[in-house]
């Protein structure tokens, strides 16, 4: 029996401490439930030791806890093997590791395909590696609703396509991409797929086996865990290809002054002392996520987004951007004649936290002809009362500026 979302807010200490806060920026980072904070605190106060190093009890227990989380991640995303899961600093680092690895197999004239809605983190690493190797970066366009133009994809994929990197959920438009169809089309052309799941894991059911993605990345802090911890999932057949971005201790088999032999994936990527407390926090965040029903959680945030879109229609001076076929809990909008930062600045005074700017997606904003947007993003702890407060404040904003 899963935990009900009613009163779920009471599990988040920050939201309890600041009951007046209307937090609509969960796409940026989510708040953390008490059990995650407690797990991190308890690690430092009673379990602190380095992993994979000492023979004493504290160290072996820390190692055990750390490795246990690998298994929890495996279960959460439906991976086959624990060793497919590597710990990183976050989605950005995970993508950089894969991009850096592709540098070795990318030749002049090859190409990598991304989509027009990618976050800079899933754009720049590919752009830079393509530049270095004189390969092409191809961009799958989106339409004005904010959906990828799927028919274009088969034209972009060819024998020289080395990878398709695409987001699961757009961090600006809220679009949930049809990943299964996309992966199928890519695999027909023998193209592996990297899925940026930063906005989806922990918010909706995500299963790497069902989706059949070859690589998947996400960050702990967007799914109720701590900052500075993330995951790279890679199918076993790519393990020899994935190269470390950082060299150092803990990732090696044998070292001499002339040569080093490395451990296999994923240990090869985890050089230096990892963020053990962050990983343990991620473990607690997964426990938390497993207690709630993810179908219900995603339906809840999606419903809040739909209600907000409907209510914005009644404000003639506000325009929601895009209208994807499958939406998540994210709504970007603009206000006539009022800059996004002035909107956000006004909302701040009403204890409403939203994000304003380009949200690390400058090319996407260019596509819509907007230098900046305001973004409201929902999580499980938001309610319709939050939507109403936002709409009410937007009416006040109009009055303030007229």
């Amino acid at each position, binding site marked *: 029996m899963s935990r009900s979302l009613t009163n779920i807010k009471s599990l988040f200490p920050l939201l309890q401490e600041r009951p007046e806060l209307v937090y609509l920026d969960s796409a940026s980072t989510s708040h953390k439930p008490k059990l995650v904070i407690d797990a991190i605190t308890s690690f430092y106060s009673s379990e602190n030791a380095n992993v994979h190093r000492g023979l004493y009890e504290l160290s072996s227990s820390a190692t055990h806890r750390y490795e246990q989380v690998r298994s929890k991640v495996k279960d959460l995303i439906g991976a086959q093997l624990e060793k497919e899961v590597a710990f990183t600093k976050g989605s950005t680092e995970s993508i950089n590791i894969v991009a850096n690895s592709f540098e070795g197999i990318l030749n002049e004239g090859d190409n990598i395909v991304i989509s027009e809605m990618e976050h800079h983190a899933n754009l720049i690493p590919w752009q830079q590696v393509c530049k270095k190797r004189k390969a092409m970066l191809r961009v799958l366009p989106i339409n004005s609703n904010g959906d990828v133009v799927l028919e274009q994809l088969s034209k972009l994929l060819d024998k020289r396509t080395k990878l398709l990197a695409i987001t699961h959920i757009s961090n600006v438009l809220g679009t949930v991409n049809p990943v299964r169809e996309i992966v199928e089309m890519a695999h027909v052309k023998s193209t592996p797929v990297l899925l940026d799941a930063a906005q989806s894991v922990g918010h909706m059911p995500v299963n790497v086996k069902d989706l059949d993605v070859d690589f998947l990345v996400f960050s702990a802090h967007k799914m109720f865990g701590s900052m500075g911890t993330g995951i790279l999932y890679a199918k076993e057949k790519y393990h020899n290809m994935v190269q470390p971005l950082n060299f150092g201790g803990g990732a090696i088999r044998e070292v001499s002054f002339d040569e080093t032999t490395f451990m296999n994936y994923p240990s090869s990527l985890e050089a230096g002392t990892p963020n053990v407390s962050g990983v343990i926090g991620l473990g607690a965040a997964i426990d938390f996520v497993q207690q709630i029903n993810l179908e219900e959680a995603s339906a809840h945030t999606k419903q809040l987004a739909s209600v907000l879109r409907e209510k914005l229609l009644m404000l003639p001076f506000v325009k929601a951007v895009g209208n994807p076929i499958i939406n998540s809990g994210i709504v970007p909008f603009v206000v006539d004649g*009022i*800059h*996004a*930062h*002035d909107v956000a*600045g*006004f909302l*701040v*005074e009403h204890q409403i936290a939203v994000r*304003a*700017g*380009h949200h690390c997606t*400058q090319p996407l*904003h260019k596509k819509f002809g907007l*230098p*900046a947007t305001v973004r409201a993003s929902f999580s499980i702890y938001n309610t319709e009362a939050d939507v109403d407060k936002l709409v009410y404040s937007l009416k006040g904003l109009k009055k*303030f*500026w007229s």
Partner: protein
Amino acid sequence: VTRLDRLYDEVVKRHSSQPYHYEKRNEQGIQAYNSICGDRFDLYIDVKDRMVNTIYFHGYGCAVSKASTSVLGRVLEGRSIAEAKEICNQFLRLLKNEVIDGEKLYSEEFKSFAVVQEVPARYDCAALAWKEVEKFLAGLDSQDY
């Protein structure tokens, strides 16, 4: 009067809705750009005989950054380079609450921007164009104008 009323007071509202010398030019301007929020203004500064003749600007930014750029043009036009530098210095000090007691402000309108001392998130908006112009003026020293 709320903090919001003070952040967007009559000066900021007027200068942002009807900015002074707001015009797109074909010439290459100096760019004031904040990569974090995306605000971007081009400033066209005409300097002759060690005087700031005219300042026009164009671009995209929030009410605070637009108004502060508008005030900048209004105050710096017709000033000597040395004076213009002094004015930039004063405005930027004012934003950080570093104006000395009894110091005479070059413009009464500067006071409207002092509120960013309480709203640190908006400091960059108010300082954006001023910092770039300060750099530009400093760079003129080595050149013969």
